[in-house]
Structures are given as structure tokens and as C-alpha cells.
């Protein structure tokens, strides 16, 4: 897969569909400007990794993609939907864009399989048999076929996070967002979650990740984006970590590795 340096790559440089396009996107919480005009493209099949310090705006940028945050300026197009225009159908968008959170957010009163089946049943209205089959399939995909009947509290953090990934996969999204999904896990459990994400990447899933795992970011990213003070400071392939062009990224990498 070719990595594009988005700063100077024309849209025609790739024939693959653009899934997400940020154009000078701005976002403020009150008087605090969190995104100060970011431009960014995510192509189908690519893994885009956002890195940066806390407060650099990377999680906010990610959350804008599925409408968890509304933008204050610029243009944001996701799966052909213009999120900068009023009247966006968020529910339709969210059937195409999945998200996995740092804190898993599994439904504690439901088993792993029920967590996975809930949205396909209620949103896509599929039958119970088909839903069970689907649950088996996606839980197997994350290596938890044997945990279908377990409740979240019976699972380790890593297993819970894998169920959360399966829950997202069950909606057959075109794009999945990962918001610091391993930040609450110890190194061993982090590994099992990262391996699942890696497999999805190899399977061609389009993904946008926010992560602090620098080694993983470098190995999995088709596009690596370093955010700083609410802007895209530096972007390119995973190699930008080896050869940072800005002192900010150099310092960040120095601290991170």
C-alpha cells in the first residue's frame, strides 16, 4: 500500500475512494480552539494513525468523523456525507462508521454475543438466527468464539476491548475509528488487541486510529499524522517517525520511543 504525503499530494494521486475528507476543519469548545483548520484525507483500505500530545486535538478530530462532535468551520465529508451542512443523518452515517472507545463501553447487562447482536437486531432488523450466526462470526474474528455467553465483567480488559471491536464489526462498517483503544490496558493485553487491529488492517478495513503506541503506529500506518496545537503538523508514511522534519515531532518521538 502506498502512503501519500497528503500535504502536497493531489487528489488524483490515488484512484481509491476518499472515505474521509477534512478541509480546513475548525472546532472550538467555548473559547478553546481545539482544531485550528485541519485538512486530511483518508482513502479506502488505508490505515490512518493520528498521534500527538494530549490536547493536540487528535481525539476530537476522530470524534468529528462520526458526528460525536460537530465542527464549527471548514468542510468535513465522510462516506459521501457532508457533515458541515445541516440535517446530516447521523444514524445513517453511524451504520457505516464504527467506533471503538478507550473505555470499551460494553453493555454490562448483556453477554458478549448480545452486545454484538444488539445493533444488527434493532437497527438492521435482522432475525435472531442470522444475528446469532453473525455474532459467532465476528467474535471468532477477534478470537473470542468461546466467550459468546460471557458477561463483560467476566472478561479481561483486552477481551472486553475485542468484544467491542466485534460489536463494531457486526454492523459491517466501511470505516472504523479507534480512540486510544489500548490506553487502559497493560502491555500484554495491549498486544492481543493490537494483533486484532493488525489483522483487520491486513483484511483491507479502512481505519482511523488515535494511539500512543508508537511502534504499532509506525508498523500499521499507511498514513501517519502528527497533530500539534490543533493542526496537522506533519504527515506522511510511518517513516516520518524515523526522520522527523519538525522539532516538535522530533521531540515527541524522542519522548515517546
Amino acid at each position, binding site marked *: 500500500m502506498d502512503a501519500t504525503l497528503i500535504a502536497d499530494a493531489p487528489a488524483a494521486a490515488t484512484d481509491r475512494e476518499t472515505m474521509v475528507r477534512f478541509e480546513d476543519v475548525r472546532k472550538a469548545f467555548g473559547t478553546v480552539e481545539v482544531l485550528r483548520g485541519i485538512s486530511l484525507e483518508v482513502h479506502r483500505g488505508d490505515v490512518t494513525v493520528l498521534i500527538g500530545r494530549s490536547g493536540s486535538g487528535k481525539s476530537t478530530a476522530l470524534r468529528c468523523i462520526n458526528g*460525536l462532535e460537530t465542527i464549527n468551520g471548514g468542510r468535513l465529508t465522510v462516506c459521501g456525507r457532508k457533515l458541515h451542512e445541516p440535517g446530516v443523518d*447521523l444514524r*445513517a452515517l*453511524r*451504520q457505516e462508521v464504527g467506533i471503538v472507545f478507550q473505555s470499551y463501553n460494553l*453493555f454490562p*447487562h448483556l453477554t458478549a454475543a448480545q452486545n454484538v447482536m444488539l*445493533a444488527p437486531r434493532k*437497527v438492521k432488523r435482522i432475525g435472531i438466527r442470522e444475528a446469532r450466526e453473525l455474532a459467532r462470526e465476528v467474535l471468532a474474528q477477534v478470537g473470542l468464539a468461546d466467550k459468546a455467553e460471557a458477561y463483560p*465483567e467476566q472478561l479481561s480488559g483486552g477481551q472486553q476491548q475485542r468484544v467491542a471491536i466485534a460489536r463494531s464489526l457486526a454492523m459491517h462498517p466501511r470505516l472504523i475509528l479507534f480512540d486510544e483503544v489500548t490506553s487502559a490496558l497493560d502491555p500484554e493485553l495491549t498486544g492481543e488487541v493490537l494483533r486484532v487491529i493488525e489483522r483487520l488492517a491486513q483484511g483491507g478495513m479502512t481505519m482511523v486510529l488515535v494511539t500512543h503506541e508508537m511502534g504499532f503506529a509506525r508498523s500499521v500506518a499507511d498514513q501517519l499524522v502528527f497533530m500539534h496545537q490543533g493542526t496537522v503538523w506533519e504527515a506522511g508514511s510511518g517513516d516520518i517517525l524515523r526522520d522527523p522534519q519538525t522539532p516538535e515531532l522530533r521531540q515527541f518521538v524522542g519522548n515517546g520511543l
Partner: protein
Amino acid sequence: MSYEFDFAFLDEYGPELLRGVWLTLGMTAASVLPGFLLGTLCAVGRLYGPPWVRRVAIVYVEAIRNTPLVIQVFWLFFGLAVLQVRIGAFPAAVLALVINVGAYTAEIMRAGFESIPKGQVEAASCLALTRSQVIWGVQLPQAVERVYPALVSQFVLMMLATSIMSQISAEELTGVAYQIQAFTFRGFEVYLVIAGIYVALAAALRLVLLGCATVAFPRRRRLGTPL
């Protein structure tokens, strides 16, 4: 000072006592579910409804929680009479209990809903569930589970509160007791027996409600987590 206990009235008034027990149980049984539903609707309306629904819910909850039950019962019973609506003592009592316990349940359920982490709602709406699917399918089951012990207490209190219904001539347990002591002048013994019966009824109600919990919360059942 010596006092001769005399429980002879038990033989003579046994059937009356039993009828009183049945009426108390009947009022309670008829009020629990509607009261729970009313309270839950009010909690949801107050938290997530449009402004006018919120206002109605607040006025209802505060009006009920800040007036005595017996006044609410009179107000309903005589108010309905003024409106030319004729209903019996039993339906009037049940209606009053539902309205009363609904207000308290609304506050308990509101606490339950508010105790659920925001991430739950966020995750559910990110799965494209509608607002109402999130409320009824994700938040409600967790909210009920969290506040269930408080709900059980509230319904036991409601059962004990049926003891004022003889005021509108619904001759429940306490009403029967009042009559028996009026005939026998054995007030101390009568109310001792009545207190014992209430204790037994309360224990039974708790048992039944805990039984409901094992059916309603499969996770508790499977993991053996006590409520």
C-alpha cells in the same frame, strides 16, 4: 401490675382478619406494576422529554412528594365525587397508591438513569440506535438493576401505607383491626397481631420482588451477584 393477654378475638374475627389481609394484598399487587410504569415514564419524561413534559413531571412529582398520602386519597375520592365520577373504595385506593408511589418511583428511577456512565449512551448511539432504543434498551435495564433495592423498599412502604385506606372505607387490615378493637376493647393484642401480620406481608413482598429480580436480571442469576 399484671395484664392478662386475651387473644380470644382471633377465633371470632379470623375471617375478617383474613379478608383484611386479602384487601391489603390486593391493593398492593394492583399498584406495584402501574406505579413502577408511571414512575419510569415520569423519570424518562423529566430527563429526556421536551420542556413541557419536564415541567409536568416536576410539578406532579413535587406535588405528590410534599403532601400526605391521606390528603391525596381524600382529594381523589371526594374530588371524583364532585366530578360525578363514581368509583368504589378499592379502585380509588389503588388509583391513589399508583399516583403516590409513581412520584417516588420517578425520583428513584431518575437517580438510576443518571448513574449510568455517559459512555454507555455514547456507545449505543454510535451503533446507530435511536434515542428511544437507547433509553429503553440500554439505559432502562441498567437503571432498574442499579436502583432495585430502593424500589423494593419503596413498594414495601407503599404496602404499609395501605393502612390508611380504611379512611375511605376500604376495609383493609388496619381497618379491620380498628373494628375488632372497637368490639373487643383488646386494642393492644389486636394491634400486636396486626403488626405481626404486616411484618409477614412485608417479608413476603420482598421475597416476591427479589424473585422478580432473578427473572429480570439474568446476569445476576448467572453470576450469583446479590442485589
